[in-house]
């Protein structure tokens, strides 16, 4: 089947394309990109001229919770949330139950993802067995089963020695090591950013240095090994400095920032809902200088990717004392709107840069297909509606969990449609795209 995306603005940073062009999809591949392409029997999707046709977005940091925590999310609900949020692919962290530290779990995830038939799923394998920080996981097996990167996310790679070995060993397969950078002794039993808000509210603090110290350690180890290290969910300004310094020295370090860390600050702990457990995440929301540093890093190129750290939790788990609530919020269905509203319309980044952060760079860091609309590439395409008025409605989300602090927010910019492997899996009626076109 052929499908012609007609009349939109095509932005493909990888090919240096930005213009009013058509995109022809033949079955599951991109067949042509050009001006006024002939219909030639294709199903035509008429687009408003301001709609943006771009390479499918890739969220390189999500928690799909399956196997083992299906009350929070399943691969089916998580990938449905992904396509509704404009993502054609996600990379899922291994802290499931059991941990994805062996080929059986990876194969299970891959088969569940195929069954779901929504966004593509790239599993991330554990660095260490059981993510316990002692012995390396069976990395070659994980690679063969489909893992694209390694991480003990949820906790840091425990020791410098293990991180060194993981970097060295994973380089054999071209896999980056993604570290949840956090010094456990400095984090202690902290639940919020260490600063004025935590002091006022009586919450135990986690200083930015807890993150930056381990970023510094890992940058040193990336230099030592020549291997690729990626900083997960960076939040502290001192971490950004460490990454910038590493990049200047030619060290292979990349980093991601989550939408909540470029949008919110620790003031959200106090208002509008004091002690709202939906603003409890790790790393915590930091103060405005940190938030502003993340925004600056997104603008100047120090930050490579926007990743959501989508962390669904059941409402029972969040309806507890702040100290006892689990860390994390959902993010797949709000990331595009927050990026548009805060960064693109906020004049911080260009549309082209947005697509680099959400598609081109994640594909490059993980060495996965996508991030391009080149002829012959998989037909993973996201159609963005930059001026769509979006009112965030947690209850209407496809994710099984609703733990978002953005419920009720009004944002400018959203998703018009999501096409994975040539199939239009999401069409936003609010953007005037009939679901029937699928």
């Amino acid at each position, binding site marked *: 089947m052929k499908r012609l995306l007609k009349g939109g603005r095509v932005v493909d940073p990888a090919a240096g394309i930005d213009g009013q062009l058509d995109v022809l999809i033949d079955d599951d591949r991109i067949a042509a990109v050009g001006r006024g392409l002939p219909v030639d029997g294709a199903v035509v999707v008429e687009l408003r001229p301001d709609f943006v046709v771009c390479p499918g977005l890739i969220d390189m940091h999500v928690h799909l919770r399956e196997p083992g925590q299906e009350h929070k999310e399943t691969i089916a609900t998580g990938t449905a949330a992904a396509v509704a949020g404009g993502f054609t692919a996600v990379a899922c962290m291994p802290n499931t139950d059991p941990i994805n530290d062996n080929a059986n779990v990876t194969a299970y995830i891959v088969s569940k993802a195929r069954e779901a038939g929504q966004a593509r799923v790239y599993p991330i394998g554990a660095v260490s067995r059981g993510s316990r920080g002692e012995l390396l996981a069976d990395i070659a097996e994980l690679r063969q089963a489909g893992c694209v990167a390694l991480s003990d996310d949820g906790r840091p790679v425990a020791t410098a020695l293990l991180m060194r070995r993981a970097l060295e060993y994973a380089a054999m397969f071209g896999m980056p090591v993604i570290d949840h950078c956090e010094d456990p002794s400095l984090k202690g039993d902290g639940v919020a950013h*260490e*600063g*004025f808000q*935590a*002091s*006022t*509210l*009586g*919450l*135990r*603090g986690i*200083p930015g240095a807890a993150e930056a110290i381990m970023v510094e350690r890992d940058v040193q180890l990336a230099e030592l090994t020549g291997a690729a290290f990626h900083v997960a969910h960076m939040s502290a300004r001192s971490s950004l400095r460490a990454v910038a310094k590493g990049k200047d020295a030619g060290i292979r370090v990349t980093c991601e920032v989550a939408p909540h860390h470029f949008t919110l600050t620790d003031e959200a702990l106090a208002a509008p*809902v*004091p*002690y709202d457990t939906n603003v409890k995440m790790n790393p915590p929301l930091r103060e405005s200088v940190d938030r502003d540093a993340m925004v600056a890093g997104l603008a100047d190129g120090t930050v490579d990717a926007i990743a959501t750290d989508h962390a669904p939790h059941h409402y*029972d788990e969040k*309806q*507890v*004392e*702040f*100290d*006892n609530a689990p860390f994390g919020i959902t993010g797949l269905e709000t990331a595009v709107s927050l990026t548009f509203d805060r960064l693109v319309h906020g004049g911080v980044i260009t549309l082209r840069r947005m697509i680099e952060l959400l598609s081109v760079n994640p594909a490059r860091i993980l060495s996965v297909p996508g991030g391009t609309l080149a002829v012959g590439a998989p037909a993973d395409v996201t159609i963005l509606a930059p001026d769509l008025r979006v009112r965030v409605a947690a209850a209407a989300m496809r994710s099984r969990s609703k733990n978002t602090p953005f419920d009720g927010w009004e944002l400018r910019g959203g998703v018009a449609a999501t096409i994975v492997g040539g199939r239009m899996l999401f069409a936003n009626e609010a953007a005037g795209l009939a679901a029937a076109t699928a």
Partner: protein
Amino acid sequence: MTPASTTPGVAAPPETTTLRGKDLLGIADLSPAEISLVLDTAEAMKEIASRPIKKVPALRGKTVVNLFFEPSTRTRTSFEIAEKRLSADTLNLAIASSSVAKGETLADTALTLEAMRPDMIVLRHSSSGAGHLLSRICRSAIINAGDGMHEHPTQALLDAFTIRERKGRIAGLKVAIVGDLLHSRVLRSNLHLLTKLGAEAWICGPPTLIPPDVARFGVRATSRVEEAVDGADVIMLLRIQLERMQGAYFPSLREYFNVFGMTRARVRLAKPDAIVMHPGPMNRGVEIASEVADGPDSVILEQVANGVAVRMAVLYLLAGGAEHEEAA
């Protein structure tokens, strides 16, 4: 707010005859006028304690649940006496954290109690913000009797009542607070209260026990105890928890006492008529020397006595004050 309104005997402005909120979760939520209203009301309540029959019908027919998730003797007893003197029906629930670990969430416990239609819940809990959670799901008025490291509003109110009774005012006084500041809910409530009423608040402790960015409260922080107490009108000591050595906050209790302990020599640096306060329970020979605790400047037992009057005032005002009495 003019300093005059904090003077005893001067009534709060006529418009402030009730508390705006349904709950008392913290001093942070109170206006200076509301604080003065509580203190003025407590004066009337204090008189009740000197009567042969220490009971008034103000809260007759009201049910108050004292829900305590942390061990507490003085606060729970103080609330219970206050409730009984106001003729409320009271129920004490001391829930060990172990039984909570077995299953029921705080929210479910609160909703179960709510179903029996109490009017007020007095909550003591080890997690900061526990009262806010209850406030969102309960119809009852929630009175925070201490939540984690956050606030202990009735303690700050009884401290203010005691200061006002002794000094005649709060505005302009130098108040030095010395001890474990980081983990103290009493500190946070007092900082809100003292800054709202115009006192000059100083806090003192080892740098490891000073909350980050605390200067933004509008207080002076120092680790030199002599500087903190110099010319002070009020010295307030905070409890040093014995387990803090394990967190490497300071090397030993002996060293703490040597550097920060309130001795008679250090009290002498304060104003001659300075008073010494402690919310209790005290560690004698750690944050306070016995000679100071038992000395002429100590108002520690007055604080306890005033606690009942202040809690009666809070219960009375949250029940609707005079309006409720007329309706009854």
